């Protein structure tokens, strides 16, 4: 049983005290003292306001913070003595914190939370990122309600974003995930999400948690598990997500967590995605996408330079990953003057699929493959920003849709690459 190894004795004792719950909210942390208190307070308020009768617990899985993160979480706990501000707690709301063993990773944290959810037989469970400072108590209702109603198993968020935020999702994760798995999940790499007890039981028992890709990119892995496991998926609109929140400081690390896991998942799910899949509509509660049209400044010159330099410096690596034709086209794009750079949808789809196939075949170190995609992604990002600089949200969304269609059209090419040469 996986929970026997992942739940230490102290944590198990605390879970015994919590007992069976209806709802569980998990907060994975690592040195998040700056924001975690605010987030836990909002979670607590949301539980008290919208689920006053349900048995609930907040569980913090911490990777060994050195900045009092765990103490702050525990301080937000409601004991017999305390009330939440302006809210009345009908019953005890436990808020417990555990330090999981091993190196900090979202996968271990989420695995801990899911094992706890499974053990406490939670009917519905939400996970909130500790840096989601734009959280309101309504998020808790919005995320959990679709599960509480016993209809859905996996709830992903839809945020109101600036039109130039979430670029990796718009340019790669959403289009490729949609094309490969025929599921239109807008945020396949969510940081705030919810799931059913049924789903938690299924996932907590999987053997793949020990694998690096599942550990570092657990959010992506869970979305794919929900899709490929035929769990009922819904998207729900949460409202604005503060600018910069969750933005990866390190692009390569972010790509390892998301793109790397997406590529990795293709191996074990080949039988599923290689078949002719009927497109699975995903119901969205609230707006499907909301974009903030305010201008946002980007250093496009820097993007262009990094792209051009990367293609040049990584040519030997790219040669082992990309087909000759694709590499030539990429090099041609990279040599374009700044104002004329155009990384087209078709070329980008082919590039990504060739990287995926190379990852499958491990033509070089898989980690190097993901790293090598980073400069090309910068080139694609440059094109996206340039194309949509003056676009309305609707026009931008139309461009995203066109990219998705390009990925879908190119799916046979992925299969060809997968099975074919190199």
């Amino acid at each position: 049983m996986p929970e026997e190894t992942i739940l230490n004795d102290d944590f198990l004792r605390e879970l015994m005290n919590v007992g069976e719950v209806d709802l569980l909210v998990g907060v994975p942390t690592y040195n998040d003292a700056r924001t975690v208190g605010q987030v836990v307070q909002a979670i607590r308020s949301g539980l008290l306001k919208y689920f006053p009768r349900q048995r609930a617990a907040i569980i913090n899985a911490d990777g060994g913070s050195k900045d009092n993160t765990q103490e702050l979480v525990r301080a937000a706990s409601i004991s017999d003595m305390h009330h939440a501000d302006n809210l009345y707690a009908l019953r005890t709301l436990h808020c417990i914190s555990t330090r999981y063993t091993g190196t900090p990773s979202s996968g271990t944290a989420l695995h801990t939370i899911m094992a706890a959810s499974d053990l406490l037989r939670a009917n519905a469970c939400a996970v909130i990122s500790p840096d989601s400072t734009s959280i309101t108590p309504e998020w808790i209702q919005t995320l959990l309600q679709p599960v509480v109603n016993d209809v859905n198993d996996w709830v992903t968020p839809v945020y109101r974003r600036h039109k130039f935020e979430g670029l990796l999702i718009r340019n790669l994760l959403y289009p490729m995930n949609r094309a490969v798995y025929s599921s239109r999940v807008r945020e396949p790499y969510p940081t705030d999400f919810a799931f059913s007890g049924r789903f938690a039981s299924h996932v907590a028992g999987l053997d793949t948690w020990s694998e690096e890709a599942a550990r570092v990119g657990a959010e992506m892995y869970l979305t794919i598990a929900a899709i490929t496991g035929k769990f009922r998926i819904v998207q729900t609109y949460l409202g604005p997500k503060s600018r910069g929140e969750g933005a990866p400081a390190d692009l390569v690390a972010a790509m390892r967590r998301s793109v790397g896991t997406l590529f990795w998942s293709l191996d074990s799910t080949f039988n599923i995605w290689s078949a002719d899949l009927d497109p699975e509509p995903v119901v969205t509660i609230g707006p499907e996408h909301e974009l903030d049209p305010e201008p946002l400044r980007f250093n496009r010159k820097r993007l262009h330079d990094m792209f051009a330099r990367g293609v040049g410096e990584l040519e030997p690596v790219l040669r082992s990953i990309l087909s000759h034709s694709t590499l030539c086209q990429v090099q041609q794009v990279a040599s374009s003057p700044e104002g004329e750079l155009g990384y087209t949808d078709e070329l980008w789809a082919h590039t990504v699929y060739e990287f995926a196939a190379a990852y499958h075949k491990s033509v070089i170190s898989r980690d190097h493959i993901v790293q090598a995609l980073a400069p090309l992604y910068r080139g694609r990002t440059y094109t996206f920003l340039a194309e949509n600089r003056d676009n309305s949200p609707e026009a931008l969304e139309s461009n995203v849709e066109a990219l998705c269609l390009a990925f879908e059209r190119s799916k046979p090419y992925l299969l060809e690459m997968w099975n074919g040469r190199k």
Partner: protein
Amino acid sequence: MPLPQDALWYKDAVVYQVHVRAFYDSNADGRGDFRGLAQKLDYLQDLGINTIWLMPFFPSPLRDDGYDIADYHSVHPSYGVLEDFKAFLDGAHQRGIRVIIEMVLNHTSDQHPWFQESRSSHDNPKRDWYVWSDTDTRYRGTRIIFLDTELSNWAWDPVSKQYYWHRFFSHQPDLNYDNPAVRETMWGVMKFWLDMGVDGFRLDAVPYLVEREGTNCENLPETHVIIQDFRRRLDEEYPGRMLLAEANQWPADLRPYFGGGNEFHMAFHFPLMPRMFMGLKLEDRKPITEILQQTPAIPENCQWCLFLRNHDELTLEMVTDIERDYMYDEYAKDRSMRLNLGIRRRLAPLLDNDRRRIELMNGMLMSLPGTPIVYYGDEIGMGDNVNLGDRNGVRTPMQWDGGWNGGFSTADPESLYSPLMLNPVYGYQAVNVQSQKRFDHSLLSWMKRLIRIRKSLAVFGRGSIEFLYPANHRVLAYVRQYGKDAILVVNNLSSSAQAVELDLRHYKGNILIEMFGRNIFPRIGDLPYLLTLGPYQFYWFRLRKI
């Protein structure tokens, strides 16, 4: 058996609340009476209670089950005569049982001669004994208590062409306590019964004695002055007698009724009762610990009165809206079970006739700080009849045996004051004293044991309480201490088995002796004390340093 002479006897009391009409009919007229009640004193003595609280037995039109009194100096003819009451009182005292009677100070029946005189003309000397007004707009800040039946606290009197004030039913006009003659007369009423030998009064509806414009007409300082005056006279002329307040208020608002130990001896803890039911349903100690934390300390000579059920609805006035909704949904899904702001059900049906929950609730009743009250019939698990109007469904005849009229009366069943419980679950053939007396493991036998153990140590009635807060919120644990005696009470509020670790380091070195079986449990050491409890199980441990 002589009555113990301790002035604080009420702290050690286990009270049995009974309605004369409902208990035993000695003359086959279909209504219980004092002679019948006297015949059942041996039963009550055997049960182990040491105090009886009698509901109103005065002459009355009985439009509010006797709380509409038409004569304060006599006994309702259905229940006998004064001599019968006296004989019952003597019989109780001979068995070491004290008797508390109801005293409805706030209002009379509109059939009371005082009111008849008062309404007869504006010049009548008793006109000012009640609260009259030309308009129905005075005291607008006052809530209506019987929301289901009354639209206003004022009622038009067509005889004297004025409105009169009533906090309860419109046929219950409030007495005017601003009138010294009323105060003197009511003290005279109390003296009448004290001279006869009653041991105390349960004073009904005390917060409402006085009205003042611009207030909510509850808990006013003038009311406290009146109570203090009654108490002073009581202590001077009848030492050792007791006043019990019926004031359905929050603990902080109730606290003034104890004054500095110079108002009431006891007061009902109304907010605790619904929270015990809530805690049980939520499987969470929070509602109970929370309300007891909010309960202020009271003077040494005072005591809270605790109860699970009584003759009224399970009142939900002293809960928040969210708690009330929860209670309704969990305990009164059928809307016919709801009345005013409460639930008109008995203990056993409220707890789904689950013996474990009934025992747990009684265990808490007997071990939390205060004097417990057992409502007649709850010791055998009687049911209720929500098809009867008002609160009559919880006032059906006591079920003595499985024979004619459940042993309550030899009258024709059709002539009983109330239909008997007949259904196969709660009917008198299934639930009755005689059948439960035959078995050691019946609820009745268990209640006797519980009361006997409760009475064996003064710590239950007089001890302090220290809540333990184990991490398992389903477990309610506390230590009661009085002098050298200490008991540990551990209650599992949940429907499943629980493990709990108790921090008992303060009691290190003590052994635990389980009070029902007298078995010894391991000595307390430095480590958390681990206990496991079955569903709804509770323990009473005596802590002994041997």
